[in-house]
């Protein structure tokens, strides 16, 4: 909206509805975008079918997050992440679910939960046994082996204090937050968090985004401040009008402790924003990881790694900060993937309702082009959108796009039915040539089921050779979307073990060449919305039975593997090549 349009809208809306458009926008950035027309359906079959098997798998405990029927404070509306991880190194994905609580008091059974994979499609709740029972306001999670002992550790961002669990290697964890030096002064709202070896010393450092300065006693409850409304309906206040925050960067000292290097690294020099999801990946291929932070209603930040322990914030220059008209969007989730299989890591960022997600094509040299409309994603601006992924769901060799939805203002749908509290899952199948087609049906029953969802993790929990999806639903049990892919497309999974690099190989970029395509993927410690996906990279190969693999390790080393057979999981150890090949999914 340009200035003249704003002037007109303000005047016209105020007279006609008694509510100004400025008020109608609530505290979120949105553009009032209408859906682009849908093209003629391709009619092509989609071979992935999703069924929610959470209940059957034993994931029955609801994720408590604020009151069951309303969201009085923004803290209660933002929800939390989920994680696929293999905490016991048995080769099967386990699940870690974050949780909130209620302001009125503790809720029986509300806790973060760890579920062990029983390898038969079911999970066992091992939270208590693992020492992870904890109730509070958890938001983000990042998983990585920060002490390089061979077991994945867990960091949780939270309000008012984050916490770090060290994996003891025997199925239990120890809260080492204080010993690690990660207690921060005062109350802060940690959101996005990611392990990142920004200085390439082989040890995982830690980046934490913060959302707003929050205090239950200082922010008006829904209905108390008339300025806090959406479409004329009183809603929770924020983020606009609340004090934005700066992120923090902690350097891993290698002795179990961390040092706050926010100022020295210049991460703290960026403008305060409403920071949410943070991802770390080498976006320009120079061997040093950038950090990209989705920001709500403020420009998103891209920290370019200078390679000397410092970062420059180059969001605007890169094209990743704002939309093509220069306006900030309500950035929620971030996916990193190579949608056009040109060997470069592209970016997908989700936003608020009445705005499209943004698909950014990486044109090299840390320059990105917004190709959202060109790619066909403009048809779907209806929902508030959260956790997302660029993942090949049907193994046809073309990464698809998936995200979940759900409103932050449950009160609004009672007046405006077009802004539902619960929304469906959004799936765009990749048609090739940079084009996508939204699948409103044809991808299984779970896609159209409605929930108020937030975090999403992607991974092959049943080791059957396709990508399943784990979803956080507010005040409901999670969803576990089992993918039953029948198309016969080949695939290859790549698991990396660092030696000179951090053991988790977080920061590596793997490029697989198959059937004339070249697809890049990054090993990440967090993405989607405040969530963690399977660190084993999954490449759909379509009809190709053979693929070449190139690895750029976080240490800077490169490794090439030729003529690998499809339909297997290969484990590559830095400097030692392929150390195991497993024919899973047969």
């Amino acid at each position, binding site marked *: 909206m*340009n*200035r*003249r*349009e*704003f*002037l*007109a*809208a*303000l*005047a*016209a*809306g*105020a*007279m*006609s509805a008694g509510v*100004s458009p*400025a*008020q109608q926008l609530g505290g979120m950035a949105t553009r009032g*975008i*209408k*859906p*682009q*027309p849908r093209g003629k359906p391709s009619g092509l079959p989609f071979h992935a079918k999703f069924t929610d098997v959470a209940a059957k798998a034993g994931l029955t405990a609801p994720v408590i997050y604020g009151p069951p029927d309303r969201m009085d404070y923004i803290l209660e509306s933002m929800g939390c992440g989920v994680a696929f991880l293999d905490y016991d190194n048995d080769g099967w994905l386990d699940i870690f679910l974050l949780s909130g609580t209620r302001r009125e008091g503790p809720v029986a059974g509300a806790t973060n939960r760890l579920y062990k994979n029983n390898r038969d499609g079911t999970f066992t709740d091992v939270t208590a046994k693992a020492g992870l029972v904890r109730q509070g306001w958890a938001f983000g999670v990042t998983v990585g082996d920060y002490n390089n002992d061979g077991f994945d550790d867990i960091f949780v961002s939270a309000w008012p204090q984050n916490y770090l669990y060290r994996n003891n290697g025997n199925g239990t964890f120890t809260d080492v937050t204080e010993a690690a030096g990660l207690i921060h002064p005062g109350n802060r709202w940690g959101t996005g968090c990611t392990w990142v070896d920004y200085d390439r010393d082989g040890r995982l450092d830690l980046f934490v985004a913060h959302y707003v300065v929050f205090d239950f006693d200082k922010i008006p409850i829904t209905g108390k401040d*008339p*300025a806090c409304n959406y479409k004329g309906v009183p809603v929770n206040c924020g983020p606009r009008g609340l004090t934005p925050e700066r992120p923090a960067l902690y350097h891993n000292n290698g002795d179990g402790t961390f040092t706050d290097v926010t100022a020295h690294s210049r991460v703290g020099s960026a403008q305060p924003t409403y920071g949410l999801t943070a991802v770390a990946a080498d976006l320009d291929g120079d061997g040093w990881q950038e950090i990209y932070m989705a920001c709500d209603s403020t420009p998103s930040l891209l920290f370019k790694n200078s390679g000397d322990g410092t970062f420059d914030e180059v969001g*605007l*220059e890169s*094209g990743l900060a*704002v939309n*093509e*008209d*220069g*306006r900030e969007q309500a950035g929620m989730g971030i996916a990193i993937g190579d949608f056009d299989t040109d060997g470069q890591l592209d970016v997908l960022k989700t936003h608020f309702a009445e705005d499209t997600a943004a698909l950014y094509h990486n044109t090299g040299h840390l*320059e990105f082009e917004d190709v959202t*409309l*060109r790619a066909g994603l*403009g048809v779907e601006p209806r929902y508030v959108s959260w956790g997302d992924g660029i993942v090949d769901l049907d193994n046809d060799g073309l990464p698809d796009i998936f995200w979940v939805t759900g409103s932050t203002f449950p009160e609004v749908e009672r007046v405006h039915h077009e802004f539902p509290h619960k929304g469906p899952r959004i799936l765009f199948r990749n048609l090739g040539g940079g084009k996508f087609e939204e699948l409103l049906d044809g991808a299984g029953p779970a896609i159209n089921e409605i929930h108020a969802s937030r975090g999403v993790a992607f991974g092959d929990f049943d080791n059957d050779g396709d990508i399943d999806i784990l979803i956080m639903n507010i005040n409901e049990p999670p969803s576990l979307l089992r993918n039953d892919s029948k198309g016969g497309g080949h695939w290859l999974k790549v698991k990396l073990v660092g030696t000179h690099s951090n053991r988790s190989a977080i920061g590596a970029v793997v490029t697989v060449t198959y059937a004339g395509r070249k697809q890049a993927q990054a090993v990440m410690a967090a993405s989607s919305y405040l969530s963690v996906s399977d660190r084993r990279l999954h490449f759909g190969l379509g009809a190709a039975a053979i693929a070449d693999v190139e690895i750029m390790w976080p240490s800077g080393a490169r490794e090439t593997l030729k003529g690998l057979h499809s339909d297997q999981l290969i484990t590559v150890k830095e400097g030692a090549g392929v150390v195991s090949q497993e024919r899973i999914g047969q």
Partner: protein
Amino acid sequence: MMRLFAASILLALAALAAQAQQPGAQAQQQAGGAQQQPGVAAHIGKGSQLIHDQMYEAAAKEFEQALALEPNNAQAHFEYGVCLLALGRNDDARPQFEQVEKLKGPSRYVTYYLGRLDLLANDYPSAIKRLSAVAANPPIPDTAFYLGAAYVSSGDTEKGITWLEKAAKLMPTDYRVHYRLARAYSTAGRQQDATHEYALYNQYLSQHKSTETEARACSEALRTQSADAARAACQHMYDPNDPERLTLLGQLYGEAGAFQQALDPLNRAVQLDPGSYEAWHDLGLTYFRLERYADARGPLLKAAAMRPEAYGTVVMLGATLYMLGDDAAALPVLEHAHQLNPGDEQTAAILDKLKAEQPKK
């Protein structure tokens, strides 16, 4: 009766906003047919009003009805196309503009909109061809902006920069232009120029946001306090050199019923930007609401000349003339208003009365 009529007009006008000038307003006259059936005019008038109120779905229905009555009405096709473009129904908008070309021959406005549709469809060569054709005498000030964007998207960064630089001269306070120009400079490796443009982008975006914030504060103050008490909050918006801010301030005062306070910013706005329909309309509306009909006449005549299809302006002008006792001048204006909105029973009644009185004189 006169007072009754005036009161009813006042009530009717209370529902009308100070109107924004639509991009296609002037084009309507270019593209419009000479003679229209009354029903067609009514649908077009109502549709235009709905476009202005950003109720595009409802507006589209009006134009569809107009076209059902008169399939070859170029103005209806044009307005319908604009409406569909606003709805994002780009594929449906295109044939509407193409139909206008068929009916009326080449039009700079149609070429402009087809160029924009080409740009949205990523058909950069066609967008460049069309927008270049009208760029020397642009129908809309942002033509250079879209042409620059088309060149940049096509990969011709240098030409893109040339046109974006022109756009920056035409729309120096539009942050979108400076952002695109900065990005183009950056792509071209002109980092110093890019830095300069990013600074301008930040400056104008910041100003835009300030206006938004101040307008919210003013609106809220006017909603909760007396006009005098709210003045402190609202006067932050009084920039004696910015007609858009002044107009907005006048609109906010007017919307709150503080017509006396609205006069100063609106009078200043029309001095600074005498081509602004909305400023003239708002000034006329304000005088009208203050019952200063002699003062309202001039601004409303100017506004009605700029947008003869704007029912709210036309009917208010007719009412003003009638209140001034200038029945001869009021009659054709009210007839035109009635044609634009045949459903207005009060206008119809007073028209009957005026017509009945004419032979006696």
